């Protein structure tokens, strides 16, 4: 059973044991608008919490996607290259970006759970 945590920069990480699947939230895809291009990290790359891990480009803007926690990239969602629209359609599911082996599990506690993220979003409106 995986547990989902959120960052203030609107990334999510679904944790299952020592692996985590990372993507951007539905709020983020909505704010970006139609996504046209995604640059994913290379498998094997080490990412660090808050460091740039991927780039997402929409018709409005280009933005960085930051790693929620330290980790090593073990898989990426190659289907996004062909079909970036998947992120608009299902940001928190089929539109996942990459999978990491979590290096510093203690950092997960610094992230928000679903309820805290909802409250955070209400504060932004």
């Amino acid at each position, binding site marked *: 059973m995986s547990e989902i945590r959120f960052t203030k920069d609107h990334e999510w990480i679904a944790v299952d044991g020592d692996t985590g699947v990372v993507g951007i939230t539905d709020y983020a895809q909505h704010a970006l608008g*139609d996504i*046209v291009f995604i640059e994913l990290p290379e498998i094997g790359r080490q990412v660090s919490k808050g460091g740039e891990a991927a780039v997402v*480009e929409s*018709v409005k*803007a280009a933005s960085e996607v930051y790693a929620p926690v330290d980790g090593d990239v073990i898989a990426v969602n190659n289907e996004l290259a062909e079909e970036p*629209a998947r992120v608009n359609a299902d940001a928190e599911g089929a539109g996942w970006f990459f999978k990491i082996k979590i290096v510093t599990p203690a950092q997960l506690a610094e992230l928000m759970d679903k309820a805290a993220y909802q409250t955070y979003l209400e504060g932004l409106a």
Partner: protein
Amino acid sequence: MTTATISGATISGHRGLQMDEPLIFELDSPGSSGVDLPAPPKTKAKTRLGAVPVRESVGLPGLSEPEVVRHYTRLSQKNYAIDAGFYPLGSCTMKHNPRLNEKMARLPGFADVHPLQPMTTIQGALELIDTLAGWLKALTGMKAVAMSPAAGAHGEMCGMMAIAAAHDHRGGPARKRVLVPESAHGTNPATAAALGMVVEAIPATADGRIDLAAFKAKLGFDVAAVMLTNPNTCGLFERDVRELADAVHQAGAFLYCDGANFNAIIGRVRVADLGVDAMHINLHKTFSTPHGGGGPGSGPVVFSQALAPFVPLPTIIHDDDGYRLVECQDEDEGTALAFGRMKAFHGQMGVFVRALAYTLSHGADGLHQASADAVLSANYVLAKLKGTLNAPFEGPCMHEALFDDKSLKDTGVTTLDIAKALIDEGFHPMTVYFPLVVHGAMLIEPTESESKRSIDQFIATMIGLAERAKEDAASFHAAPTLAPRRRLDETTAARKPILRWKTR
């Protein structure tokens, strides 16, 4: 009048005198030609190209001369330009290009000059570049200038390369970090990244300016430079720039200023007094040469005393023997540390001529007036529209007025819809969705050359559109209805771009 009758089908596909023009490849009638060339002689010679034919079609369309003339004339009639109407594209300084500039640039001695001519035959051209360089140094109070960079981003790269050269020359630990505020132009972090530096974005304050405390906390002896844009992309003057410059210099780093918005402060602020080490000047914007169609631009960079030794080649030296270009480091003692060169030749001559014509025809007092008028125009727009649209930052502004989409909330009309509706109203839209620091940004730069009459017409249009947005959102979603093309599918164009025409 209904849009149905206007956008509805005519038999020809034309609408009034607005012609529906296909691609030139679609007009191909094979065998047609504008010139009557003799058939190429038949060759019997065996080639050494194996099976590769000696002659092959290159796929150019066949058209007669009148067809070609008509095709390009029709395309040109679809062009929207500053000569045709108001063009308030924020951060682009789409001002009038005086016809005097054009007349000067077309003088044969300037227009026909070649970069490989002997120096004795181009003394006038070199004097012009040197005179313009003198003006740029005087207007900024800076010590040196590199005239060759091709445009703004190229100028940024030139400035940052000089900074890297200065750090290399000084020695010490590697400096790779570059701090860039969110209120800077998007090209600033791109430039630093292109040079292999590590960019750190520093969030803006609630009033749309740099966060001085955040900068001071991030400064260190591994920071190469801070890049800021002043006035910034929110159209605001960075008040803390001098204190920032002091902190940057204390950390042994340099301050790069993006001078793209120089039009707001020319003749008012001496950049050297702000503690800036390098700044590019977009001659094509501030000094009024036609731009917006992709060039040519020109982005000279002015430098402080600390960076002056590293200015790239060529430089021009004026002595008793006249003017000469210094093209090699060892040609002059002052160029021993020059970091290299930015371009094969010496810069954009046509833009230099226009920029000097602009400068001399305005004079110091005229330039002083132009920046005041540019700021006045923007503040007039801000004052007249802030009751209708939401201005996220407290005014007064500098050369451009920034609004967000808060007032459109719950109408179902977006910033993009307003931009498209402006096309139907005969205006080039303002810059939209930039800067990113505000939601649904609309950035309006009227410039000093726009008359009050045309600014008023634009303001009335914006107010009218904002009112209509509350009642009739649907009409916006169809806009533009009166343009040669309707709403373009930007998403598909970006996701599945078709980059060349192919026969079906």
